[in-house]
């Protein structure tokens, strides 16, 4: 009796960890999961889901795609990194520092857009210049692309983070934080940035249009999933560029689509258009391919990995900036060749450009 109980106990103990372990990879899969969160450049995904474009492409390849909208951006990446999502939308820096640094081999499947003014540094007071930031307390989401933007600004103005004091502030509280009398400087992104810039005493002294192409928004997919199930990758890319084509038609359907994307992101057509104005969208796959294959991307990622290493984002265990390898089209690699965890791959976007999907 006693030994039976013990066996049962031991067996259940062994079963528990299964609940924590990763996705089961056995068998041939036809069901895939994508996570996304609200952001100007990603609203087309929501539209593509609601209007059956995703389903259409999934059906074409005989698979099903489950798309989940996650309220919290970072949570969506964490879910992708530690859970069973096959793809997720994120920036280039977050792709390097969250999944790739955690050993999840990821590929940038679609380079959707880059921030071209969506992220900005704001000082309180009229007629301020970037140099005035010296010695101030800066409210910012630390370790996010905001800090990367700020660091690049400081670099260009021959300052470092030592010249100011960062106050980690959650993005949801940024607008309230700006209203506090003691606040003098904030770094944030849209839509909060728009709200802050609407106050009469706000001066934007630096924004991402001054470092074009460095804060990139992408659809990231687990590399092994992409290799084993190219159908899934093709369906995503196909659906994306169909939606892009629809947005740029300049007719009533395009307006209707933009209006519905604006509503879904909590604003209206006008508000959404103003957000798109500071988002450089790659509407055409050929443009995205060119961007992904250009040598400038290598330089950008070098900045990004230097920043990430300096701030401990490659993990406390990372002893050098080369700890995580990044691969680019044409086989060029930055960092450790034996530990490539982030890949830029234009293959599928090229297929879209050539109409082969």
């Amino acid at each position, binding site marked *: 009796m006693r030994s039976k109980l013990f066996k049962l106990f031991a067996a259940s*103990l*062994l079963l*528990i*960890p*299964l609940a*924590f*372990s*990763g996705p089961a990879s056995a068998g041939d899969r036809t069901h895939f999961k994508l996570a996304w969160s609200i952001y100007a450049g990603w609203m087309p995904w929501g539209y593509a889901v609601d209007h059956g474009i995703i389903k259409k492409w999934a059906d074409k390849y005989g698979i099903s795609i489950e798309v989940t909208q996650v309220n919290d951006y*970072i949570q969506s990446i*964490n879910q992708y*990194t*530690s859970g069973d999502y096959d793809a997720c939308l994120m920036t280039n820096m977050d792709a390097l*520092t*969250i999944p790739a*640094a*955690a*050993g*999840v081999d990821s590929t940038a499947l679609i380079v959707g857009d880059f921030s071209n003014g969506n992220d900005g540094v704001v000082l309180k007071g009229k007629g301020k210049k970037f140099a005035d930031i010296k010695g101030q307390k800066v*409210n910012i989401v*630390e*370790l*996010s692309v905001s800090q990367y933007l700020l660091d690049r600004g400081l670099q260009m103005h021959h300052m470092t*983070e030592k010249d100011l*004091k*960062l*106050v*980690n*502030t*959650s993005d949801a*509280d940024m607008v*309230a*934080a700006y*209203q*506090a*009398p*003691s*606040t003098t400087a904030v770094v944030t992104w849209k839509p909060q940035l728009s709200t802050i810039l609407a106050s009469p005493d706000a001066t934007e002294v630096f924004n991402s249009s001054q470092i074009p192409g460095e804060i990139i928004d992408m659809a990231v997919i687990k590399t092994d999933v992409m290799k084993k199930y190219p159908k899934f990758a093709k369906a995503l890319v196909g659906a994306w560029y169909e939606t892009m084509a629809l947005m740029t038609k300049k007719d009533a359907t395009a307006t209707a689509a933009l209006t519905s994307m604006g509503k879904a992101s909590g604003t209206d057509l006008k508000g959404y258009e103003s957000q798109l104005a500071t988002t450089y969208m790659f509407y055409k796959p050929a443009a995205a391919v060119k961007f992904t294959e250009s040598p400038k991307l290598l330089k950008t990622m070098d900045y990004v990995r230097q920043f990430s290493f*300096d*701030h*401990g*984002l490659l*993990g*406390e*265990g990372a002893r050098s900036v080369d700890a995580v390898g990044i691969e680019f089209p044409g086989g060029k690699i930055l960092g450790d060749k034996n530990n490539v*965890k982030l890949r830029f791959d234009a293959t599928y976007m090229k297929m879209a450009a050539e109409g082969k999907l």
Partner: protein
Amino acid sequence: MRRLINQNPGKGSALLIGALPFILLLVIYLVSSAIRLEANPSDKLLPSLQSMVETMHYYAFQADRRTGEFLLWADTLASLERLGLGVGLSALLGLFVGIAVGTIPYIRSGAGPLLSAFSLIPPLAILPVLFIIFGLGETAKVVLIVFGIAPFIARDIALRVTELPREQIIKAQTLGASSWLLVLRVILPQMWPRLIDSVRLSLGAAWLFLIAAEAIAATNGLGYRIFLVRRYLAMDVIIPYVLWITFLAYLMDYLLRLLSQKAFRWYHAGGNN
């Protein structure tokens, strides 16, 4: 009778039975962690004990690359300062207001309803307002703690005052005590250990408000660190920090209990712990 409810474990086996759930949790953790790490050696969700120890070693004994601070101690000091200030102020405020409300009927009628209403406002809900009034600095964090626990302590003390035997109050009056003397010599001495109880009970909430305040805007602190590295799923920092916070909270509770037992032995004579 050998019924289950009549069987008591001995001292040694009680210790063992108490430790068992902890050991079980540890084993489950280690097995799950090993499974995940085997699939992906860089997995961050369930780090190995070794990587947690290494990270904490860095946090405790090596100056940080960027700030030159010993992060664990700097964070602990900053948080304990805020917590100490917040809880201390709340205790004082709670004691004064509680005794006043509990003792003087006019004050009770005047301030009682306000106090009840105040204690029902969820402090986190009005955080943005607190920011604008008190700024984003240390004041706002301490105020959030005070806002969160002082009304509870005050109400608790007021109730304890009204629970005092009526006879004591009457007796003191027949001996000629004024209201002031009554408060000073009869009520206050009896409230000290009750204040300690009340503070012990509100410590959990105080930590909650501290962490919440640090999560929203801060430059250091235990809660700040957790919310900072949360972005990078750095469980090798988060898990040890949570254990450290739990230990600190336990230690505070223990010290307060000890203080109460040493300083107010009469209060514990009846088996109150």
